[in-house]
């Protein structure tokens, strides 16, 4: 029997029972896919995490979990640590150790993080504006490409911050922010974020606000204290929930800005000496702040991931063996059911070897199809890993 004839007969046999064939292909493909995809996902995630960590030389934040601090600064995960005060940032900036970039990522708009920072952040991450322009005033924001695409947003539209607690009726007003630009996609968490001036996050936090002038007629009846110098504004004073060109001048900050909160500060030391000086100055355990090398923190995280991966691989291997044994049993049972068909092949002149080849070809077609399917899945997983990782982390 010729090889083409064997292939033709095998193909016809598989097509005759399509459900069984597809089930076998699917089962074997998944058995092959899971361990390989897990390996690929973890390896790609480690690459992506390390790349972002390497582009963040040093991180200063409150003492606590270095991984929490790193993930909050790099992936804008919910802030678990207490805030850092702005005076710490100013002190660090005055030491001239290198570029200092503040990060305040406590707030969200829906699921998207609102990141208060300075314009240097865009240089550090090599982010460029694809459409529109950079933020120029309080209440302006620049958003990531994926966020713009998913919500159909463009420059000139607005986006509103979400209240932290919907039951806090006396809490801060949500702030409606003007979108001035859309960033070019760079396949990092920045694609899903909303970037604002640090001061805008303080407005969201309620530390700065704008309201109608207190000399206006509406509040003339407001009470004064005994000294006559403190005017207690009543509820009729309208507080602005959006910054516009008209009310921009009415926004003002309260209290000592040195006490204003930040999540962390990225420090890009100007040289090795300044890096060493920065590392040394945070070694005192009594210091309420810590310095973290994000690459090291990510390495620790990756080691944990690898340990988890090893466990998962053992589980997948056992499951895989079981699944392959089941598939083998399905093949054997199927061949037994087709014994009469095989005997007919023998009667019309097919040799024993040809019949074995026929059965082997069916197994091979199923195995090759499953392998190709699994490989496609693995490739897609590798491509989607950065986005998947961002979603999983944040």
């Amino acid at each position, binding site marked *: 029997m010729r090889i083409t004839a064997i292939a033709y007969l095998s193909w016809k046999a598989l097509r005759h029972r399509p459900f069984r064939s597809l089930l076998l292909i699917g089962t074997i493909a998944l058995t092959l896919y899971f361990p390989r995809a897990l390996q690929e996902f973890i390896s790609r995630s480690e690459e992506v995490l390390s790349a972002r960590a390497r582009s963040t030389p040093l991180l200063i934040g409150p003492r606590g979990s270095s991984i929490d601090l790193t993930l909050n600064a790099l992936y804008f995960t919910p802030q678990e640590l207490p805030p850092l005060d702005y005076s710490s940032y100013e002190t660090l*900036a005055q030491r*001239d150790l290198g*570029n*200092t970039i*503040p990060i305040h990522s406590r707030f969200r708009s829906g699921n998207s993080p609102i990141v208060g920072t*300075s*314009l*240097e952040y865009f240089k550090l991450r090599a982010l460029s504006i694809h459409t529109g*322009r*950079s*933020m*120029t*005033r*309080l209440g*302006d924001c620049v958003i990531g490409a994926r966020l713009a695409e998913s919500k159909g947003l463009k420059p000139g539209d607005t986006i509103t911050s979400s209240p932290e607690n919907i039951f806090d009726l*006396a809490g801060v007003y949500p702030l409606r922010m003007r979108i*001035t630009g859309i960033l070019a996609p760079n396949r990092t968490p920045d694609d899903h974020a909303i970037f604002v*001036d640090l*001061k805008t996050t303080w407005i969201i936090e309620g530390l700065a*606000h704008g*309201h109608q002038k*207190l*000399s206006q007629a509406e509040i003339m009846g407001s009470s004064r*204290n005994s000294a006559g*110098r*403190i*005017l*207690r*504004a009543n509820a009729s*004073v309208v*507080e602005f929930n959006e*910054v516009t060109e008209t009310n*921009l*001048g009415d*926004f*003002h*900050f*309260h*209290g000592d800005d040195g006490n204003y909160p930040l999540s962390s500060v990225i420090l890009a030391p100007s040289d090795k000496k300044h890096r060493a000086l920065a590392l040394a100055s945070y070694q005192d355990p009594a210091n309420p702040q810590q310095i973290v090398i994000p690459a090291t923190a990510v390495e620790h995280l990756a080691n944990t991931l690898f340990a988890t991966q090893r466990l998962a691989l053992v589980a997948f291997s056992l499951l895989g063996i079981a699944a392959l044994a089941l598939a083998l049993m399905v093949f054997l049972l199927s061949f037994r059911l087709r014994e009469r068909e095989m005997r007919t092949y023998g009667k019309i002149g097919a040799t024993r070897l040809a019949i074995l080849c026929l059965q082997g070809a069916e197994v091979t077609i199923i195995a090759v199809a499953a392998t190709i399917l699994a490989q496609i899945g693995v490739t897609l997983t590798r491509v989607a890993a950065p986005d998947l990782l961002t979603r999983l982390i944040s």
Partner: protein
Amino acid sequence: MKSTSSPALLILVTVTLVSSCHNSNKKENLSLSERPKPIIATVNYPLAYFAKRLSGEFADILFETPPNVDPAYWSPTDDQVGAIQAADLILLNGANYAKWTSSRTIPYEATVVTSSSFGDTLIELEEGTSHTHKSGSTSHTHEGFASTTWLDLELACKQASSTADALCEQFPEHVESISGKLKILLEEMRDLDRKMKSVTAPLRGTTLVVSHPVYQYWTRAYGLSAHALHWEPMQKLGTLEMGELAAIQGEKSPVKYFIWEGPPTEENINKIKMAGFINIVVNPCGARPAKGDFLSIMQENIASLSEAITQGTSSNTGTP
């Protein structure tokens, strides 16, 4: 065919490589010579003047406030903010000067507050109504610090030095030239400071009336006392304003001198004269002057004060 095309291909590749190297060298040289000058953005004219004097020709100064607008209250457009964001260095005055800087986005790393070396000596304003928004919350006012720091020429020297430090840090290749220019600038300003001290000495113990509350540092530096109004040189002075002036004259004596920020109208000059005051123009020079520069304007202020004091002394002694 194969044997003949290979050497030809090799020659072609070599020629292309050599020519591309030559072109890239040319481009590099071009980009070096045609590289745009660094930009230094400033929030007021004195800082623009210091930056220009200290940088010479190696940098361009960005100070876009229109001539008829006080830079302290200027509000830049989004495009102007964009241009400032692109500057290599942004010099702020500090002391809440140029309020737009607190509501606009400017790069922190490129920003230098030139008054930070004397931040603890800034004059706090007592004006404005304190108020609270919620019961139990902290009261506050919307006022801050007096901001015309450079009218105290000693503070102006400190601001010039801070400007020089910022320039040296940002452009280390020009340190020598900046230091040399700073020395000359400081000498000139200290000389003016000495002259200002000497010319204002007779005004000590006299209450001055100033048209606008912008002379706090000037009066503190030279031991003067002034009552501030909120008048513009071009505004029409009515009965209300003249009544206000008469009340001051009644309260405080001896009062002789009325200081304007800019040249007043002829009508205002006469009204102030009629009220028994001598008009003096002491230009704070926050905005770019139409004629002259920072030092020449300060020189004119000194001359104007000297002339007025001479006039005041002669009128006291009865000379017409």
